[in-house]
């Protein structure tokens, strides 16, 4: 507990709180709409963007945001039009962004440690700017979820029926994708390009096992994501584990517990 006295650990706890809220909310959309693969593709695009920034010696965050938004702009229409099977197209985008990421990594002239940090995350080294970006992202995600709660609920339930009700379902779907991209971009440095996706899906999937109430699902998903972050951080400090990996393992453990004790589970 002595660690709490240190500024770097306090910043890490705040980052885990903010990343937990944003990922927890975004995860609800991803899990209910069953578009997990889109999330994976977006997080890998963010990683590719960040590595391009490192290669060009530019700031990482704007590039990762740009790549996330580009991925959303490509994935949205693919998922919408159904001209190709979405999983095939997303698989191609996912592997090509990963290919690009490793290409940029290979081209990096100096040490690869900064690039690897982006892959695994380095929550213990977050600075004030990273926290400000997380605050802004959280603000947008929360405000849009509250203001458009009913429209988002209709869209994630069924996009066709939402359209039939006279809701601009396509605009809201793109908004969801953009906020997912924004969350991935903002959490890239703290949780890492490979692991952020697990922090989006695992807590929401755990909450999905427990409740039939959408508001409770948002709440539980955020609580699980924050708990994963905080417990993961303490485990990482105590046993000298990598922080990002510890966070994801805790979130997976929470998921297993919620599946076992799920009231929705068919009892034999």
């Amino acid at each position, binding site marked *: 507990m002595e660690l709490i006295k240190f500024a770097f650990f306090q910043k890490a706890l705040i980052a885990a709180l903010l990343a937990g809220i944003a990922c927890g909310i975004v995860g609800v959309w991803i899990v209910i709409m069953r578009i997990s693969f889109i999330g994976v593709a977006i997080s890998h695009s963010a990683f590719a963007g960040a590595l391009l920034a490192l290669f060009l010696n530019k700031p990482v965050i704007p590039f990762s945001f740009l790549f996330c938004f580009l991925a959303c702009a490509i994935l949205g229409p693919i998922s919408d039009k159904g001209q190709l099977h979405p999983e095939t197209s997303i698989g191609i985008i996912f592997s090509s962004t990963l290919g690009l990421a490793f290409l940029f990594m290979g081209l990096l002239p100096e040490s690869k440690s900064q690039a690897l940090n982006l892959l695994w995350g380095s929550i213990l080294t977050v600075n004030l700017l990273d926290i400000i970006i997380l605050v802004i992202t959280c603000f947008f995600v929360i405000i849009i979820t509250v203001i*458009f709660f009913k429209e988002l609920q209709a869209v994630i339930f069924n996009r066709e029926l*939402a359209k039939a*009700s006279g809701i601009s379902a396509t605009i809201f779907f793109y908004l969801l994708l953009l906020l997912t991209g924004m969350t991935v971009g903002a959490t890239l440095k703290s949780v890492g390009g490979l692991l952020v996706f697990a922090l989006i899906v695992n807590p929401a999937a755990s909450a*999905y096992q427990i409740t039939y109430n959408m508001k409770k699902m948002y709440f539980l998903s955020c609580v699980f994501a924050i708990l994963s972050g905080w417990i993961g951080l303490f485990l990482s400090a105590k046993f000298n584990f990598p922080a990002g990996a510890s966070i994801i393992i805790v979130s997976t453990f929470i998921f297993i517990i919620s599946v076992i004790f799920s009231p929705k589970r068919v009892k034999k």
Partner: protein
Amino acid sequence: MKKTKIKLDNVSVGYLTETIIKGLSLEIKEGEFVGIFGHNGAGKTTLLCAINGLANIRKGRVFINDIEFNIFTENLLRRIIGYVPQTLDIDPKLPILAKEVILMARYGKLGLFHFPGEKEKKLLEEICYLLEIEHILKKPFGQLSGGERKRVLIARALIKEPEILLLDEIFAWLDFEMTGKVSKIIEEIHKREGITTLLVSHEIETIKKLCERVIWLEEGKIIYDGKKEEFIKKFETKNGIN
């Protein structure tokens, strides 16, 4: 003379390489009860989706109340159309209750920043009483039986207070008793409110019972459009029924 409620002008609809509806034109007047009949794959559901603006229209134009369906008018027009889809594949664990599924249909009409109030509560009570679904309103939608889901979707269409009702195989999944009750409710609402109603069915008995006019589709084209009595004769002749 009654005004034209729905007009399709040389409409073709397709998915991927296949064209399902081919150059179809028709007019439906206000207050008509029209049956859309045809075998599986004839284009019945696609026709409803074309009217609702949910289908991928390749050619032609759709008008509702003389207003053309396009990107600027689609949301306004959809708000006056109640639509009951044929099927809805939903995960049983989905955290959405039957009551929420019904109220969602009003969200477009309510507009941004407005939430369901007293009017919606009253409408919900009335419609759910009619359809005998008050007891399932607080159940998760994904856990309802096929028949219960269907009644919730009918309630969803009616709560919009629609001017046009598009019903796609609404009696599938309903038992004999409930089929009778639901068809009576639809008939009464149509008579009382004068709602223009289109009922898709591949069952001749349903069409016989409820519709005044029948549109018979085959391979995406209209092979008959006229009065029910003539349709029955034509159908019996075609199928060798005396």
